[in-house]
């Protein structure tokens, strides 16, 4: 009985992955999804860096984008 409980505990993360796998179709990550995540993370970094620079008193005005 203990062995079964241990196995179930060991399986839990994999079952979670299976749920994600089923949700995402083939379970793999598309380039589009990766780029979207990278874009979002980059924007977060930019905002956090700007906040830090403002706190330091060294923020520079954003350059106008072309």
């Amino acid at each position: 009985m203990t062995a079964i409980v241990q196995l179930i505990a060991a399986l839990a993360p994999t079952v979670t992955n299976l749920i994600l796998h089923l949700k995402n179709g083939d379970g793999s990550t598309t380039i589009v999804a990766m780029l979207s995540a990278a874009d979002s993370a980059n924007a977060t970094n930019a905002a956090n860096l700007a906040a830090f620079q403002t706190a330091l008193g060294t923020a520079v005005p954003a350059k106008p984008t072309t």
Partner: protein
Amino acid sequence: MRKLLIVPVLLFALLLGCVKAGSIAPGTNPTLAKVVQAESDVDTGVAAALTITQQVYAANLIDKATASQIASVLATVTQANAQAIALTKTLTTISATNALTLQTLESPITTALQNLVQSGLVGIKDAKTKAAVTAALSTILVTLQIIQGVSGT
């Protein structure tokens, strides 16, 4: 008892065979996938470097000038990465021209990071702090060099 164990073991084996967490969709151009992964890693590296910088600054282990210098370089890296991501979004493969564009984009920030790592951190007196900041920046440098090393197909 043995029969009871076979079911979860078989299920586990099945799951191991079909779940590829974090893998990239089949058929994706490998060079493009490499670049996208590196761009994602740059984000992770910048976030980590910023966190370390904020922590050591808050702990008075680095002065404002050094923190500003690091933040400035990280901001430049982030801006260039945004451009690289925007470019990559339009691609399905990496041509020789695309690779050159990416290299041109990354070259100045790689140099800025190299300069910061090699000589710009002289203001950090504490050895452990210096090592931590250097490691965080070096990680970004290595990732940027991966993008710079990509050759088009």
